[in-house]
């Protein structure tokens, strides 16, 4: 019964998302595009954070590499959009393999510090390699060509781009969800709860952590590939450690224990930012207060708290 109601709610939300360009004011097309892309970024992060229990401070490296890859391919090769996204995913997977190989052997604060260091190294390269990355200004001025697969889509139209993002994020989320629910996902959860026990069961914990890290990096790269054409610029800020903090905040805000938590967190984050900056420049202060309240009083995040409340009421 409850599952049915939850499915119905999900269906309504998806229908609502599809209808955004027709029912909302035009500006919200941009807002929801951003929510979906950052939601995918946060969901990819939650695979290693919420599921596997690894707190990475360098996840923006993969997001940023994805955005630069798409921008570079659009500028120099003018490939179709889908091909750009594949390049983004390939580039970030490769980077995640290298950084992951060196990082997953360590735990907790050492892992966090190492990923932070690698993230900032990638940032420094993008910032200083002016001839390729255009330094601190980033890459801009690229035009969107065709979509690929012979589909005739005007990607420069924000509503069309929104629907493309919605479709890609939906497919990517289903794939991520299947991974989370598979036996592989179960082992990740077990690693979070008790890594020693998992290794005593004969499983190579480090390999599982590395594979999770690479999958998370690949999907972050996909999100990065989607953000560059949306922002019309791939800039070093997308690689900065403060960008790595965003999926952490979103996952905590929405709820790390639920697959859709990071998406809810992304929605809350982007919408609050949009509304609060209309009234004050110091939106980070407000965000800080909200986050502190969440962590102190609602440990399960917005989605977790809402579901708990609903379960309580409908008993």
């Amino acid at each position: 019964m409850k599952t049915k109601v939850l499915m119905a709610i999900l269906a309504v939300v998806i229908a609502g998302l599809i209808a955004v360009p027709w029912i909302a004011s035009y500006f919200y097309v941009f807002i929801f595009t951003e929510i979906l892309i950052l939601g995918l970024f946060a969901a990819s992060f939650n695979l290693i954070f919420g599921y596997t229990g690894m707190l990475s401070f360098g996840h923006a490296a993969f997001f940023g590499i994805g955005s630069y890859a798409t921008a570079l391919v659009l500028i120099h090769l003018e490939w179709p959009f889908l091909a750009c996204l594949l390049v983004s995913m390939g580039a970030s997977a490769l980077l995640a393999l290298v950084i992951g190989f060196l990082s997953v052997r360590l735990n907790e604060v050492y892992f966090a510090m190492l990923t932070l260091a690698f993230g900032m190294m990638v940032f420094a390269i993008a910032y200083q390699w002016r001839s390729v990355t255009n330094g601190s200004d980033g890459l801009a001025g690229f035009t969107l060509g065709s979509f690929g697969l012979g589909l005739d889509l005007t990607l420069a139209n924000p509503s069309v781009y929104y629907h493309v993002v919605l479709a890609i994020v939906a497919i990517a989320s289903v794939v991520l969800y299947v991974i989370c629910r598979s036996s592989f996902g179960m082992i990740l959860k077990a690693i979070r709860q008790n890594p020693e026990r998992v290794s005593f069961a004969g499983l190579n914990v480090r390999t599982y952590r590395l594979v999770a890290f690479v999958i998370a990096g690949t999907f972050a790269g996909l999100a990065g590939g989607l953000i560059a054409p949306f922002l019309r610029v791939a800039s070093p800020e997308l690689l900065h450690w403060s960008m790595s903090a965003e999926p952490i905040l979103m996952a905590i805000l929405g709820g790390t224990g639920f697959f859709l938590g990071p998406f809810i967190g992304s929605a809350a984050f982007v919408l609050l930012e949009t509304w609060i900056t209309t009234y004050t420049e110091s939106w980070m202060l407000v965000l800080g207060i909200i986050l502190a309240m969440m962590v102190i009083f609602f440990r399960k995040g917005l989605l977790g708290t809402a579901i708990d409340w609903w379960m309580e009421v409908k008993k």
Partner: protein
Amino acid sequence: MKKTNIKNLLVAMTATATLGTASVSYAEDPIRIGGLYILSGSAATYGEFAQKGIDLAVDEINGSGGILGRQVEMVYEDSQGKASVAIQAARKLVYSEGVDALVGLDSSGVAQGMVPTMPEVQKPLIITHAATPDVTGNLCNPFTYRISVNVAQNMKAAALVAADTGATNWTTIGPDYAFGHQSWEFFGNYLKELKPDVNLMSETNFPRFGAEDFTPFIDRVMDSDAEGVLISVWGGDLVNFIRQANTRGFFEKDMEVMFTVGAATEVLSALGEEMPEGVHLSTRYWYEAYDNAVNDRFVKAYLKAYGTPPSYNAEGAYAAIYAYKKAMETAGTTEGPAVAKALSGMSLEAPNGTVTFREGDHQAMVSPNWGVSGPMHPEHGIRTLTNLQIFDGEKVARTIEETGCKL
């Protein structure tokens, strides 16, 4: 009706009570102009000065009947000096706040990212500060205009000043982004043309924008055999730079020092007597350089309202609002494409004389001002400019062919 639905949905989704109000404009509503400036961080004083200039223009216009009989209202967003932030903020201003036109942009990097998106939002943009030649060059488009001096114009003037000095070996210290690199590139090319025997040193210095510590770069230039140095550091960075250079004895060295935006009154006010005498300072507008009725009125009103002399950023922003007034009245409408079209080739009386937006690239033909820092001003608390040179805006501008702009 439609809007109510989505708002209900959003309220339910996020459980927040407050909502930003999206507005729809009606004829009797005020004309809204969106301002995009750096309002936080080390260059925030530039955004502040621009706002002061704009407020003055808006008050004057509203006091004398507004534009097309409608009042003018400003909406500001913080660009944070980042292109991605500025592009989102511009979309917010256009689609959510319903602005009719845009002014602003301090950073060249932001301008390079944002300008290509202007045809999408179908609103005119008048750049009042960012100086990269690209936005009125290879990135130009029918909606983008610039009322302030660009790097190409200012560096042509700088090369003329530099060619008059005895210095042969030249280097640069500039912020590590488009502005710093392009300043050096254009300066070098023009100077080489004027004086083929100059030596442009391969050792250049590009500290990060917002860097706190400039001493390694200061020391490096002092240790080199540079006889002239072009410094394009600006804003809060320039204030820090000059203080650190003073303690190192940088200005005592026998060297031609040229600050490409050193006579910004934001910087001069912050430094007071710490700004050394005898260095070359440039600005896009010097408040004492222009003897005309518009400038008299502007400077008097600005001093009265804020107690400091206006900067070039304040002047550019002030003039941009008047440019929109004239363009909207010429077009008889506030429709974006019509206003953008009316701006092309239009002239207006601004504090720095008659300003014309050139048809071929939409760059205003405005004059770079160069001078040498002199004694303190008795009332304004800043250095004066001596040996003031006002270069003809048209003569120092690139030709349309050189800009690479095709409109």
